[in-house]
């Protein structure tokens, strides 16, 4: 992206409970630049309010315990902040990986 773009376009892919509550497998979002964890959560909550309490904390500060973001199917993102680039895919999935 160039320095004058005001937003970053990303795709949030939904799995499990969030997918059922959102009624969609993915959500396209425009996140204010520079995109961060907090801005992503806020944008996701605005577009999919049904995720509150089902992946997103009710106070829209972060993911609920038990959920995690994965970037582009590769790196799992910890509790810290992160930056995103145009075209990134964020996977919203349960951190309970067993079964």
């Amino acid at each position: 992206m160039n320095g004058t773009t005001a937003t970053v376009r990303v795709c949030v892919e939904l799995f499990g409970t969030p997918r059922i509550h959102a009624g969609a497998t993915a959500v396209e979002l425009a996140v204010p630049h520079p995109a961060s964890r907090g801005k992503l959560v806020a944008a996701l909550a605005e577009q999919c309010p049904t995720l509150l309490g089902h992946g997103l904390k009710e106070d829209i500060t972060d993911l609920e315990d038990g959920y995690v973001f994965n970037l582009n199917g590769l790196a799992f993102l910890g509790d810290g902040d992160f930056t995103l680039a145009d075209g990134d895919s964020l996977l919203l999935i349960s951190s309970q990986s067993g079964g």
Partner: protein
Amino acid sequence: MYGYHGKALVVDLTTRTHRWDAIGGDALRNFIGGIGLGTYLLYRYCPPGAEPLGPDNPLLFVGSPLVGTRLTTSSKFAVLTKSPLTGFIADSLSSSHLATELKKCCGDALIIVGAAAGPTLLRIEGDALEPDRITVKFEDASDLAGLGAAAKEATVKERLGDTRYRVACIGPAGEAQVKFASISNDGGRQAGRCGLGAVMGSKNLLAVALRGHLPVEVAQPDAVRNYGKDLSRRSLGAATEKYRNLGTMANVAVFNRLGTLPTRNFRESTFEGAEQVSGEELHRSHLQRNAGCANCTIGCERILVSRDKGNGKGKGSVRMEYESLFALGPLCGVSDPDVVIRAAAICDDLGMDTISAGATLAWAMECYEQGLLTDADTGGVELRFGNGDALLKTLEDMGHRRGIGNLLAEGSRAAASVVGHGSKAWAMQVKGLEMPGYEPRSLKTMALGLATTPRGACHNRSSAYEADFSDRVDRLSVDETRGRITADSEDFEAVLDSLIWCKFLRKAFHDFYEESAQVYSMVTGWELTAEDLRRCGERISNLKKLFNIREGWTRADDTLPPRTLEEPLPTGVAAGVGLSRDDLDFMIAGYYGARGWTGDGLIPESKLAELALTESALGRQVAANGQTRFR
């Protein structure tokens, strides 16, 4: 004694006798219960070199200190023996009402030795007025022979005229000694892996019915009750939401996206039909009802029904888990959910481990496509990936040892030894146990766990995958941290499986070891610290290994199938990623180092002494009353 009874019921099917053997307090404290205590008892009661399907091999049902406390998810028991599939330790868990009845009827464990002359129902009943008095009956079970597991359980209850009996039984696969036959209880729950049902079948033991009255007492009942309320509340939080909503089926779509969904016999790690058999889709289209084990607040079970309801050819509904779904779906190239549901129902009814059944079939499908198995071998069945009818037909043949099913009933490793021509390279097993649904090339820490866990390729005894599904490691590469992570995960699972807590509760604890130690003390009255509990985990892991060493384990047994070490993944986000032998050996060396073992993976005497696992130390843990009669 609180939390325990300090004794085990030993039943000899050959002599039709029974006795109580005492279990000393040191053994109970050191090995806790469940898998841990079961490993200790197996080590003591299984003669070295015992033939797995011979009468000397004991079959153990083991309870735990938490059983009967009504703490959430604690209604579990362990089943152990020497595996006919691997020749090493076989340790499985099952759950629900049978766990409590086992403790009320047989004390801390039921140890079955010998073999009956004919089909037998072992009926054990306690006296309501004198709970220590039990009646053991060896009843003719000819009428049960050939019945499916569910029908067998129902028939036993009807015959005994008391639905309060709890029943463990085998299906036709156990009777036929299929090497990966399971033991079923409480309406379809399975002690699934390693061929426990074959051992039960080898003893001509078709079912065990238990009804007991021994009191289950805890040291601090008020404290346990209050703690239980708090834990139950936490068990309903976000940490278990996945299991409460979709159950383990939720893994399919995620694993596919992450390139970790084993497909067509591990040739690929993504499946084009994954969405069709995903938990989300099955929840929408095939869910009949939710269910759970006794005393469980999570309720992870999803009962699915096929659209044709079995089509008049057997059960069309089944309790579906991720492992059954992956093994009978993507691993065999099958994306029709009705076929997968019916296949899982067939396995449950025949009493077969769905993972080993699916993985052995996937091996056979690859053999067929390579021309190593022909129509002459399969009876005209086109055993190709994706052929649902062939899958269903061959599963039935496996469970009854008919035609090609007789070969496949031996498991993929043994079948590959017969077929030859390089087919061992795609027999996807470790130590003879078929691999679960975790692709090792894109989950490198789990690769180490699969290679080293004592019972063979297993996701329940090693949770090393948790690191891979987090920001702790790069799951696609290898580094020196994996040995310690894997050892710690095994020890953690050992404690979890010995207390016994459900694995799905693990993230509901604030501090697992601290809390569990406190609960143990509340229940038993014996002080135990978090560090003591960690030590128990290490001790149990080492004793499992010691059992295997005694039964012939060598360094060469800790490895992965050639496919995973020679072929990079072709599809998905992990396309091009492989796992070299050097990288695996590097991780294994780190694991042995973290364990304090030798470079060859053996346990030094100093480590055995440190963990009280020398022969003399193990001997001292036998009850002091002199009544214990170990072989």
